[in-house]
């Protein structure tokens, strides 16, 4: 048992943070958001050049065989900077889904991601799937021809490679579709947190099935687990920065002749938020280790526990941040509202609180 980062991990943390603090501030981010794909391709390439996309892939796949701890380190920095790019799709989702593929498939896709050429996403949810526990309706023929509709696909219109969950003749499968494929239409939109997503419809769209690896169900469950771990990591960064912004604001804002940060009631509210944020940090570490656990049930329950804690803490931290900012916190002009919105969307991402509570309750809780 050991919670410390090793030297490589500390270096990773420093270099990603430095890269992001050079590239990102509130004004710059606003510009990236208005770019065609909702982010700056140069930053995406920058991530690749930093080598972070190589972290989650094994050496066989051309990567450097990191663990989910590295993903956590990157995720926290991404949250802190409020980065817009689909880094989690590249670092947590794609490597997990690819475990269903053959060695060649894995190596080929990994190469594109690692180089920064490929922007991957996952088309999984469907309009009829209220939460993560529902069945998939989208269908695939034996030849991999897809029909159906997917909803809220992150950067669905901007991604270059789309993993699609669909029911094939032999059951649930994972299929890869390239951007611009025949019969695929994207209805694109912005999301509440300033990112992009799309409804994707497939009408006889050709695809390549992932096969030769683990069963698709297992790859999907792994992706869901690592998705939760990524949410935890990012939320730690978001909460950290939300508290920083709030403390900075209340130190400077004067009312009744003194900085409002000198009012004890506000100090204690902020301190309460720190307590919650630290608990999420602990659970982010737990999640980053447990999401690679070989025991799938233990893994999934751990992820559920982490996600529930994140939701509860996120509300406390996010809501207090707006409250202590007062009116300005409600406006588009201040960064804090954007952090709050991102936290809110993470609260419902990869299964909301009820979904995860149900999973834990059905199992009788975490293993003692």
């Amino acid at each position, binding site marked *: 048992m050991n919670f410390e980062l090793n030297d490589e991990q500390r270096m990773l943390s420093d270099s990603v943070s430095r890269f992001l603090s050079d590239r990102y501030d509130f004004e710059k981010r606003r510009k990236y958001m208005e770019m065609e794909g909702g982010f700056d391709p140069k930053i995406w390439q920058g991530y690749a050049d930093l080598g972070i996309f190589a972290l989650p892939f094994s050496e066989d796949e051309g990567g450097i065989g990191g663990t989910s701890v590295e993903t956590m380190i990157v995720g926290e920095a991404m949250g802190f900077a409020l980065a817009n790019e689909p880094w989690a799709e590249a670092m947590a989702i794609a490597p997990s889904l690819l475990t269903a593929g053959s060695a060649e498939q894995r190596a080929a896709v990994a190469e594109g991601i690692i180089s920064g050429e490929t922007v991957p996403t996952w088309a999984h949810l469907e309009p009829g799937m209220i*939460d993560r526990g*529902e069945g998939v309706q989208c269908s695939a023929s034996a030849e991999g021809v897809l029909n159906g509709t997917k*909803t*809220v696909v992150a950067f669905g219109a901007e991604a270059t490679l789309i993993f699609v969950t669909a029911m094939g003749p032999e059951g649930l499968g994972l299929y890869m579709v390239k951007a611009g494929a025949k019969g695929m239409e994207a209805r*694109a939109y912005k999301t509440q947190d*300033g990112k992009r997503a799309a409804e994707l419809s497939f009408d006889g769209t050709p695809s390549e099935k992932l096969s030769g690896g683990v069963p698709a169900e297992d790859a999907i469950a792994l992706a869901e687990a690592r998705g939760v771990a990524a949410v935890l990591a990012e939320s730690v960064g978001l909460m950290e920065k939300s508290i920083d912004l709030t403390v900075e604001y209340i130190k400077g804002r004067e*009312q009744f002749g003194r900085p409002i940060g000198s009012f004890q*009631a506000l100090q204690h509210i902020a301190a309460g938020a720190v307590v919650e944020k630290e608990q999420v940090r602990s659970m982010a570490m737990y999640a980053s280790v447990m999401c690679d656990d070989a025991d799938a049930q233990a893994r999934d329950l751990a992820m559920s526990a982490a996600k529930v804690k994140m939701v509860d803490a996120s509300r406390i931290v996010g809501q207090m941040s707006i409250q202590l900012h007062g*009116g300005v916190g409600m406006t588009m002009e201040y960064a804090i509202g954007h952090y709050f919105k991102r936290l*809110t969307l993470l609260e419902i991402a990869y299964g909301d609180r009820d979904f995860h509570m149900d999973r834990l309750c059905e199992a009788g809780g975490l293993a003692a």
Partner: protein
Amino acid sequence: MELTFTPEEEAFRQEVRDFIAANLPAETRDHIKKGNPPTKEMTVSWQKTLHKKGWATPRWPAEWGGPGWSVTQMYIFQQENQIAGAPDPQGFNVGMIGPVLIRFASDEMKKEFLPKIASLDYWFCQGFSEPGAGSDLASLKTSAKWDEDGQQWIVNGQKTWTTYAQYADWIFLLVRTSNEGKKQEGISFLLVDMKSPGVEVHPIQTMDGGHEINSVFFTDVKVPAKNLIGEVNKGWTYAKFLLGNERLGAPRVGASQAKLEHLKEIAKTRIVRGKPLWDHPRFRDKFVEAQIELKALEMTVMRVLSSMQAGADTGKPDPATSVIKIKGAQMIQHLTELFVEMAGEQAAPWTDGELGDNARIGDDWVERAAPNYFNYRKSSIYGGSDQVQKGIISKAILGL
């Protein structure tokens, strides 16, 4: 003590319900029930409909067009209005500036303004907060200087968080007319025509993408002497009276009841993992807990209304209104949170219309879930934040 309604009161409820059913445009009703804020036109048109009927200003005295209702009738009327999805009365007119004028203004001023305030021919907005004066309202700096030659006030400064300034014909303004003595003692209360030269409105976009609030700039704006309410430097007294009324109106119990019913209705048809959400025990718990809180809030609001009717109106804000303000904000915030939970990952799309119909991926309530959640964070901030209310309670009630 009598909490049930008499047959006369039930008959009144039916009359209100029938009137609303016959007169509220379906388009307005549907728009509001989906969780959208009413447009200006909807609010004005409904206020005019009520005004014709004599119901536009329930709490005003009969002399100024009030219907002479009991507190119970006012409560029934408000509840039915909100449950039916009718636009709220324009609160700055009916609940704020109207009562202030009735209590503190000259007869001449009352005659000039009250009828048009009631009919919404004049849309008023509120000019209290300033960038440097939020919770510490009394530290405001917008100044009004007396121009001896022109026998008028010259106003300079900036107001902010001005709700619907873009719709307004008039603004009621707290201005600094003296820098001597306590800061509360140098404040006056003016009415300013929004068309006056030197008034500029700048929109503020809120994080939900909406445009409800504005900054309003005043540069050498000339205001006739007769637009001063009451006495010079006594504006703080009128403002406190107004804020007490504002807190009382804040909880919108009927609207929350309607939202809660809407929540139940959706839950009954929304299938989650094989059964309606309504049949998931955890959802049921959340629903019942919200209902209990709302019932307690409703009872507290009714208690305060009842004691206002029974007692002499002292003109001072009742500290119990702080309880209502805090709990009212919590209630609406919590309800919007429940809608986000119900929407789940489908709440993500941003539907500001920019991307046209492409943006619509779910039911209307799904689309409004996250923006409403974001927007209602305001309710524990404006009109005296939770922290300000707790300060009032600890001083006025607990003597700390």
